């Protein structure tokens, strides 16, 4: 699963996109991993994430029993506790931060907690290196994204790609991202409403609402 690696954008555009995730390795350190993953998420929750997820659900979640009046009062706030208590088996858990400072403070505390699980950071190449150095961590391994190759011209414009690729599993469709861009441009939804709509489709909780908000606001006055 490379669901955080291939996000569309230049290095500078990841200035508000720092994902920390922890993952056990089956047969090596998965015994007792559920409690450790919950501890990891609790540490993350203290440092002001913009999203969190446990592999089954993110902190923005679809609702199963709306009624017609709820169109005017949708939930727009993240639910951290639901994500933490929902960890039921070893897997990947993640938190997304919108500043380097928050991610750095969180990683420092995770390091001190010494959970024994693998911890990865997904962001710009330089961003992760600087955070690691600041925390006194020697990076172990690195996987570079070489971006998307599209020789048959299937992909939409950069604004749609920027929004949709933040769910690396592809659950935020191009059509939905395009629709949200249009609705925000035409004043039919606020950026915050649009972002919550997009984030609900990402079951892993790695969608970055803060970056999406910025991209939507930038796109408001720009053509695609």
């Amino acid at each position, binding site marked *: 699963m490379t669901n955080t690696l291939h996000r569309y954008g230049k290095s500078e555009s990841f200035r508000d996109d720092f994902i920390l995730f922890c993952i056990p390795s089956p047969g090596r350190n998965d015994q007792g991993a559920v409690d450790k993953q919950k501890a990891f998420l609790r540490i993350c929750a203290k440092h002001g994430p913009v999203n969190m997820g446990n592999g089954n659900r993110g902190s923005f979640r679809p609702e199963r029993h709306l009624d017609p009046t709820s169109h005017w009062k949708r939930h727009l706030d993240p639910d951290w506790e639901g994500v933490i208590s929902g960890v039921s088996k070893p897997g990947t858990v993640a938190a997304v931060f919108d500043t380097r400072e928050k991610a750095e403070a969180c990683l420092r505390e995770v390091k001190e907690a010494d959970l024994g699980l693998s911890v990865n950071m*997904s962001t710009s190449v330089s961003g992760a290196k600087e955070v690691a150095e600041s925390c006194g961590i020697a990076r172990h*391994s690195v996987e570079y994204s070489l971006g998307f190759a599209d020789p048959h011209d299937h992909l939409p414009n950069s604004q749609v790609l920027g929004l949709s690729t933040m769910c690396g599993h592809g659950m935020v469709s191009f059509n939905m991202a395009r629709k949200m861009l249009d609705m925000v441009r035409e004043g039919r939804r606020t950026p915050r409403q649009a972002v919550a709509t997009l984030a609900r489709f990402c079951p892993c909780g790695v969608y970055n609402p803060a970056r999406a908000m910025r991209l939507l606001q930038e796109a408001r006055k720009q053509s695609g």
Partner: protein
Amino acid sequence: MGAIYVDTEIQRATINQDECVECGTCLRGMSQEHLNPTMVRTVRRLARMFRFRFEPEPDVCPTAAFVMNDLEMPRLIRQIFSDPVVEHKSTGIKGRGTEEVKTNDVNPRVTEGEVGYTIEFGRPGVGVRFRDIEEMAMELAQLGVHFEAKNPITHLMTDTATGKLRDDILGEKILSAIIEIKTTLDHVEEVLETVERVNLRIDTVTAVGISTRCDDRGEETRLAGLLEELGYGAERAKTNMGLGRATNLQAA
């Protein structure tokens, strides 16, 4: 995928079953009301008749109409590779790949001087048929690369020496899949050149992740330097911070 459309003959939203990759997003990602379908259609028709803009919440299905198909092989393979909350029995983890270098500190897969590749097809948002994945796998196999044994695509190969996949799944469309291979540093250029060349023949998009081990000081310049030399700009990366260790009783 654009698999859902309104069939104007029957006046109903319809799913193109050939394009649908069984990702479950329509069912899982949409919020639901449980309104009467006749009432919903009547309101929509009235609004259309008077040219009213009908603007419901874009992520709400008013009638909770979606249900998952009962899936059997070979169609089941679509869900396995498209729905991220379905666990691969072959890997024990959710998603289309494996641990890659995310657990390289605990379970060494890529060591210094080695290079791991995740060659992903169909993402973002385009999808891919297994026959296209096979075409790439068979070309890569000719380079003598090592296919990662714990990768779901490798499990579907009938012959890992040639990269041949099972015949019964070749026409199935999925959201994405990852071929995972490993070489030494001196093969990077020919692998990346092969991926680019084959991508011209297969009607999908690809995304390559390329990984290696850092040195004891946490530095990595060999692969990064080579990529720059070859003209590949790496803007983003996933970095294993090296905080993991074996803690299971039998593994420690």
